[in-house]
């Protein structure tokens, strides 16, 4: 340890606040360096003098407790501490349990109207046929509840028909796009995209028959958003270029 480093530690050394290893290093240096040793003696003297000047054996004035007694006679009973950390922890645990139970038991969670960001420019791509793969079907039920739709999960490899509704919403800070398809005249299924989870790297620009589309996708389970000033929503897994051409022609 160099002299300037030792001097930085001298006050803590004098106060006995250094860890054992650093203290021993400082002590060793002081035994070998006369200048630092002299500096240490002066520091010890200063700190001792400061300590003696600040320390005091004053006693509280005798009337202090009497004055307190008098003040307390006008005080209300101390407020009951309902909200200790224990009660917060208990409330949080109960909240989590209730929420879990509600999510498991309840039906669809309605979208708060004030949270909705409905897009008036939405152009629906209708009459799209899509066959779901089994792994895509797993998430449908939970996604539907999240977006507030009544969802019946179809069986594997079900062909779906008309897109009847597309909805944009902001749910708990997550941007969600939901698509509802009509199936067999009564059932609906939906897809959603969470824009926050789609990486910008997935953005692609495509031009089909003079119309510009932007694609945003992250894997087959995520929605692709195609845009040409208006918006068209489709599923990534069905979005072959030939189908895109059909949609573009319709739009």
């Amino acid at each position, binding site marked *: 340890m160099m002299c300037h480093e030792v001097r930085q530690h001298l006050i803590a050394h004098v106060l006995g606040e250094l860890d054992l290893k650093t203290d021993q290093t400082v002590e060793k240096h002081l035994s070998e360096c006369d200048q630092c040793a002299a500096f240490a003696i002066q520091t010890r003297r200063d700190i001792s003098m*400061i300590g003696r000047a600040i320390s005091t054996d004053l*006693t509280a004035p005798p009337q*202090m407790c009497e004055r307190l007694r008098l003040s307390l006679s006008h005080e209300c009973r*101390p407020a009951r501490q309902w909200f200790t950390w224990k009660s917060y922890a208990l409330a949080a645990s109960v909240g989590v349990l209730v929420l879990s139970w509600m999510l498991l038991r309840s039906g669809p969670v309605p979208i708060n109207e004030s949270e909705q960001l409905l897009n008036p420019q939405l152009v629906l791509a209708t009459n799209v046929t899509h066959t779901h793969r089994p792994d895509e079907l797993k998430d449908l039920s939970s996604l539907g509840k999240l977006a507030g739709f009544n969802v019946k999960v179809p069986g594997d490899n079900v062909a779906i028909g008309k897109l009847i509704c597309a909805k944009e919403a902001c749910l708990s800070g997550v941007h969600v796009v939901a698509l509802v398809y009509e199936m067999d005249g009564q059932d609906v299924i939906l897809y959603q995209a969470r824009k926050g989870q789609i990486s910008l790297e997935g953005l692609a620009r495509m031009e089909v028959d003079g119309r510009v589309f932007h694609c945003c996708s992250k894997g087959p389970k995520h929605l692709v958003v195609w845009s040409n000033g208006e918006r068209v929503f489709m599923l990534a897994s069905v979005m072959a270029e030939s189908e895109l051409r059909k949609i573009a022609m319709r739009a």
Partner: protein
Amino acid sequence: MTDQDLARKAQKGDSEAFVELIHRYQNQLYRVVYRFAGSVEQAEDLCQDCMIRAYRQINRFDTQRPFLPWLMRVASNVCLNYAKTLKRQNLLEQPLEEDHHELFHTDTPESQAFARSERQDILDALGRLDENTRLLIVMRFVLGNSFREISEQTGIKLPTVAFRVTKGLERMQKFLKLDAGVIEP
């Protein structure tokens, strides 16, 4: 009766139990507050504030823990708030008062006068520190607390306590040398 018993009674609204509890620690409280505030009048008023605040918050006190550190935590908050108020009113730069009624253990009137002036210089240097540092140094030397204990009592992180106390003492050394006309190499 233990501190814990008294604290539990106080939590149920027994103000006499609280007074008894405070009575046990009033000297430590008074010394810290007095050294921080610098005058008897201010110290007495601040002590009253600390005690009333402690009474109002007594239900936050965990009776499994010792009372003095908790009381000191309340006191440190009251003292720092008081200093902030003074700062807003530009009244902070008042010299700390020497406790004249304390005995100086020196022999002659001359040496007693010298010690008195030396002590006042040190208290002046203490008064020139910012309130946060001053409080930590006072807790160190009045209560004899370690950095760790100060950290626990004030809720300030241990490295911050260590830094503030050592830097504060360095500054005090410099003030004293400057006041004494010592030119540093």
